[in-house]
Structures are given as structure tokens and as C-alpha cells.
């Protein structure tokens, strides 16, 4: 194995281990607070006005469900406004929404039609007419739990701080069916847990599209959403952080989102996310290692940059330990003209001796690294109040073995595309 790849691998081992342990320490430190938080009876003194923005493009099938989940929210009806933005919709979405408006005359539902200008423009458009103190966006492919809004508003009330400007939800994958969705189910659970920990250190750098709750006045003051950014929900969070406003996660404000079903859909989504991720890290690079931003600059920005290094490393790892041995085997089989019967005969005999050919030091460090991740993985399930084996164990194998390698492939492609300067719209 060549020295360069070796250095990359060991560096990523150590740094991944470091950051994972770091988050575990944050967890241990925050645990008493978490327990207190979970026992709290969350009673609201007052109910501020809230507007829910639903941008939609060709989503006639799901938009009705989305709107109804908002209508069914456990929140005073006269305090809740719904604004659906018809972003150049060519299907029957308009009719579906108008039908809902007709049937719910007592509710405050507004439909805005605009030329297709993208999600950020749609949100900015709607932002002009929101009358709520708070507003949130809900993608037309997501639904929200009945209690979610109350829980989030409670967080605002508890903190009682006008500089708390975003409360982020806890996203779950809605009824995962395909393997790709189940893998994302696990991924989201872990991400949710890490976000809760990030929240402790003021390190949240993305306000997820589905149902993040914003303080309207401040977001308007900051100029609304960036219309030329690939991931406007990440950009707004970075912008809020540079202005030293607060972002908090509400650990059990559940939002259910329909995750991409096929690899192709996932590829398209992640291509946009990763590209947005890189561009935003670059845009806000002055925060990197900047002590003025505390943990956000020192830890979070480093992690955000390291992730792409990790992706490259994962690919080389995969190449050296999976692709190369396979190529080697094919070459060896070719040398003996693909007569593999003698090998099969002695296969089980050899297994015994192959143990001797393993690099034990590397293996042990990998096992320890994996154990630390596993702890994180189990804690994530506890945090989300889900059983580890909810969807069976079988899909965990591809999750641990291939999922992140797959994502790394996408990330590496994205890096490549950015280098050759390929443009893309979301």
C-alpha cells in the first residue's frame, strides 16, 4: 500500500475518533440537562402568531397531507397562518390548495402564485406578507407532528431571548420502505442526535428545510433567504451564526420527511447538499479557526471541512481494501485460466490461515473506532425514542459497510464537478 494513501487513512482514523469522542464528552456533560429537559412539563403562557410557509413545485400528491398536518397542529387556530407558494406549478396543486381553502373557510390560508424562481425566492415572497412573530417553512414532502409547534414555541418562551432566532426540529424519515430510505432513517437519527449536541455548543450550521421555526423580524432584518444559494437553509444558519444570533434544536419536535427512494434520487439530493455544503463553507471561511466564533469556528467549521477530506479518504480506503483485492483475485484467477475448483476444495482450510495475514494493529484500532461509533449510534436511537431494531437488523450491515462510502463517492464527484466548474441549479 502506498505511503500517501496510508497517511490519509491514518489521519482520518485519528481525526474521526477525536471528533466522535469530543461529541461523546459533550453528551456526558449535557446529560443532566437533557434529563431535566425531557421531564419538563411544557406549558405555554401565551401563543404568538405563527405563519407556516409551504413552498411547492409539482407536488399535488403530497401537498394535501402536508397542509393538513399543519391544520391539525395543536395550536390556537386564530394564531396560525398558512401560506402556500405556488412556484410555477404545472400540475393540479393549485386546485388541490383552493379546494382546501374552500373547505376550511375559518382558517387563515393564503395561496400565492409566482413564476418559477426557486424555493428561496418563494419563501422571500411569502415573508413579505407574514404577520406572525415567528414563521416556519414546511417542504411539501414533509408532515409535522401535532405537538411539534408547541414544543418549539415553548423553547422560545423558556429562553426568553430576542436573539434566539431559529429553533430547528428533529427530522425523521417518514415510513421508510426501500433500503435507501431505511439507510437514511439511521442517518437522520444520528444527525438528529449530533444536532442536539451541537445545539449545546452553539454549533448548528443548518436549519433544516422542513419546519425550522424562525423569528420573522430578525430574518427580515438579515435580508431573508439567499436566492442564489444551493442550500438556502444552510446559508441562513451560517449567516445567523456570523451575526452571533442563537440557534437551538428542539430535540423532540418531530417532523417526518419523505426521503429519496432510489439511489438516483438520493444522488441528486446529495449532489445539491454537498455542493451547497462546500460553497457555504467557502463563503463563510473567515469563521474557520476564528476564535471570535468560539466552538463554532474551532470545532464545527473544522468538522465541516474535514468531512470532505474524510470522503476522499473513504474512497481510497474502499479502493485499497475492496476494489484492489478483487482486481488481484481476478488477476490470479486469470493466471490459472479461471480453474478455481482446487481453491474451493481447500477454501475452509485456508480461512484458518488467513487470520495470520491480517494486520492486527490496524484491525484493532478499527474495531475500537467502530465501537465508539456504535455507542454514538445506540445513543442516537435512545435520543430519538426509537428502538434500534425497529426496522430489523439486516439493513444495518449495508449502513455500516457501504452507506457512507456511497455518500463519499457522491461527495468526491461533487468536488470534481466544482473543480471543473460545472454549474447546477436545484
Amino acid at each position, binding site marked *: 500500500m502506498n505511503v500517501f494513501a496510508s497517511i490519509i487513512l491514518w489521519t482520518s482514523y*485519528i481525526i474521526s*475518533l*477525536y*471528533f466522535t*469522542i*469530543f461529541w461523546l*464528552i*459533550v453528551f456526558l*456533560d449535557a446529560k443532566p440537562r437533557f434529563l431535566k429537559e425531557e421531564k419538563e412539563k411544557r406549558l405555554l403562557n401565551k401563543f404568538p402568531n405563527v405563519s407556516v410557509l409551504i413552498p411547492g413545485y409539482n407536488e399535488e400528491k403530497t401537498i394535501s397531507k402536508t397542509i393538513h398536518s399543519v391544520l391539525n397542529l395543536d395550536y390556537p387556530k386564530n394564531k396560525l397562518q398558512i401560506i402556500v407558494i405556488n412556484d410555477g406549478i404545472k400540475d393540479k396543486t393549485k386546485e388541490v390548495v383552493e379546494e382546501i381553502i374552500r373547505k376550511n373557510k375559518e382558517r387563515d390560508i393564503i395561496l400565492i402564485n409566482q413564476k418559477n424562481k426557486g424555493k428561496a425566492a418563494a419563501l422571500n415572497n411569502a415573508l413579505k406578507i407574514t404577520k406572525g412573530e415567528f414563521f416556519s417553512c414546511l417542504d411539501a414532502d414533509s408532515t409535522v407532528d401535532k405537538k411539534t409547534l408547541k414544543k418549539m414555541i415553548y423553547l422560545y418562551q423558556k429562553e426568553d*431571548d430576542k*436573539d434566539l432566532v431559529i429553533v430547528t426540529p428533529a427530522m425523521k424519515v417518514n415510513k421508510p420502505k426501500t433500503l435507501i430510505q431505511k439507510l437514511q432513517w439511521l442517518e437522520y437519527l444520528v444527525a438528529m442526535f449530533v444536532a442536539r449536541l451541537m445545539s449545546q*455548543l*452553539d454549533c448548528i450550521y443548518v436549519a433544516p428545510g422542513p419546519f425550522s421555526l424562525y423569528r420573522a423580524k430578525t430574518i427580515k432584518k438579515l435580508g431573508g433567504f439567499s436566492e442564489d444559494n444551493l442550500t438556502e437553509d444552510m446559508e441562513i444558519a451560517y449567516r445567523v*451564526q456570523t451575526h*452571533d*444570533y*442563537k440557534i437551538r434544536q428542539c430535540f423532540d419536535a418531530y417532523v417526518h420527511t419523505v426521503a429519496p427512494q432510489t439511489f438516483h434520487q438520493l444522488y441528486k439530493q446529495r449532489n445539491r447538499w454537498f455542493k451547497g455544503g462546500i460553497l457555504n463553507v467557502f463563503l463563510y471561511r473567515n469563521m474557520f479557526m476564528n*476564535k*471570535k*466564533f*468560539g*466552538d*463554532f469556528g*474551532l*470545532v464545527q467549521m473544522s468538522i465541516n471541512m474535514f468531512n470532505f477530506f474524510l470522503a476522499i479518504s473513504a474512497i481510497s480506503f474502499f479502493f485499497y481494501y475492496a476494489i484492489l483485492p478483487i482486481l488481484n483475485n481476478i488477476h*490470479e484467477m486469470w*493466471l*490459472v*485460466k479461471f*480453474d478455481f475448483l*482446487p*481453491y474451493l*476444495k*481447500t477454501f475452509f*482450510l*485456508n480461512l484458518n*490461515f*488467513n487470520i*495470520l*495475514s491480517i*494486520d*492486527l*494493529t*490496524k*484491525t*484493532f*484500532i*478499527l*474495531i*475500537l*473506532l467502530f465501537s*465508539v461509533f456504535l455507542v454514538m449510534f445506540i445513543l442516537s436511537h435512545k435520543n430519538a425514542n426509537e428502538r434500534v431494531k425497529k426496522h430489523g437488523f439486516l439493513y444495518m450491515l449495508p449502513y455500516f459497510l457501504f452507506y457512507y462510502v456511497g455518500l463519499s463517492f457522491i461527495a468526491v464527484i461533487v468536488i470534481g464537478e466544482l473543480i471543473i466548474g460545472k454549474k447546477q441549479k436545484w
Partner: protein
Amino acid sequence: MVVNRRISREKYILAAIFTVLIFSLGLAMGIILDYERLRWIEQITKTYDVDFRGLQFQVLYLNSLEKDNASCDVLYATLESAIADLGDSLETIQEYEKQSKGKQNDFDIITRRYLLDNLRYWLLVRETKDLCGFDAVEILYFHSLDDCDTCPNQGVVLSYFKKKLGDKLLVFPVNVDIGEDEPSIGMIKRKYDVKKLPTLIIEDKKYEGVIERNELNKVICQGFKTKPEVCA
């Protein structure tokens, strides 16, 4: 109140300490097991040593006392199992060589010993083949891990035949990298005038360069008195 930016210095340091601890734990465990593995290989070579002495005695006995070769069966059985063990450990040692190339002194001694074992058995086979009329083909395989790109290919083809023919084919690998430490290699190299790698000595004939599967099949088959299935 704007964010009160903190730097969790004590968490950074704690995380670093734990990282180093866990990392060293892995490292230490790996090294300990590596050492155990070395001892295990040493054990194997020691067993060979005893086996070999037993064999040597049998040959001596045959040569000096028995003239009717009635004990050849016993000798053959012992030789067979000894060489089967040697063949198994060949793969082990080769795999192990790949990763600990030039790292450990202990390991160098073990490989040297293994090499000598191989050469001793090779001599023994040649000696007893005529005496007892064994029908087997022996190959002396000169190779190097450091400066021979095609040797792994030859190794694959050889172990293929070894798997196919079992104890009818006796392969004795000679790693010339150890040459400087072990004068007996120089001796044998000079006898067969080995200049290229890989070189095979099959039944006293020299073959230079990689021999492909079909060609090697032919060469090996020439050596058998009663042709095995493969040669048909």
C-alpha cells in the same frame, strides 16, 4: 442576549487524551497479538525440527540396516505429512512476509529457519526418491519479495498446482532476499547458476522466468512415472 461564544478548551483536551488512549490501546493490543503470532510460528518451526530429526533417523536406518526397503512405506507417510505441513505454512509465512517486510529481527531468523527446513527436506526427498521409488515431482522455487515483480504470478500458479496435486508435488520456495545472511542459498544458487527471478528447478532442470499454467502442467507431468489425472 447574543450568543456567548465559548471555547470548550477542557473538552478539546479531554477528547485528545481519550483519543490517544484508545489509539494506544489498539496499537498495544495489535503489537501484543503480533508477538503471540510470531511465537506461534516459532512453535511450528520447532515442531518441524523434531519431525525432521525423526525422518533423518528413518533414512539413516534404511540406508544402514534395512536393505529390502520394507520401511519405505513408513518413511513415505512421515515425509508426506511433514511436507503437507510445510506447504501449509508456506502460505502463512508468505502472507506474513508481505506485511512485516524487514521489520523484525525475530522474524528474519524464523524465515531463515523456514528456508533451511525447506532445503533440508528438498535434499531428503532427492535422497530417498531413488531409494524408495517415490513417484513425486519436486520443485525448487527461487523468488524475491523485493525486486521481482512477476514472482507473485509464479507463486499463484505454483500454489494452484500444489492444491491440485497435493502431496505428489513438492514445492520448496527459496527466498533469495535472505541470501546475504544465509550462505547455503549462495551455494545452491551457484550450483544451478540462478541469475534471473523467478527460477524454477524442476527435477534438476532449470526454467527461467514465469512459466504459465499450461506449460508448467506439461513440465510437471514429465516427472511422473504413473501419470495423475491432471496429465491426461
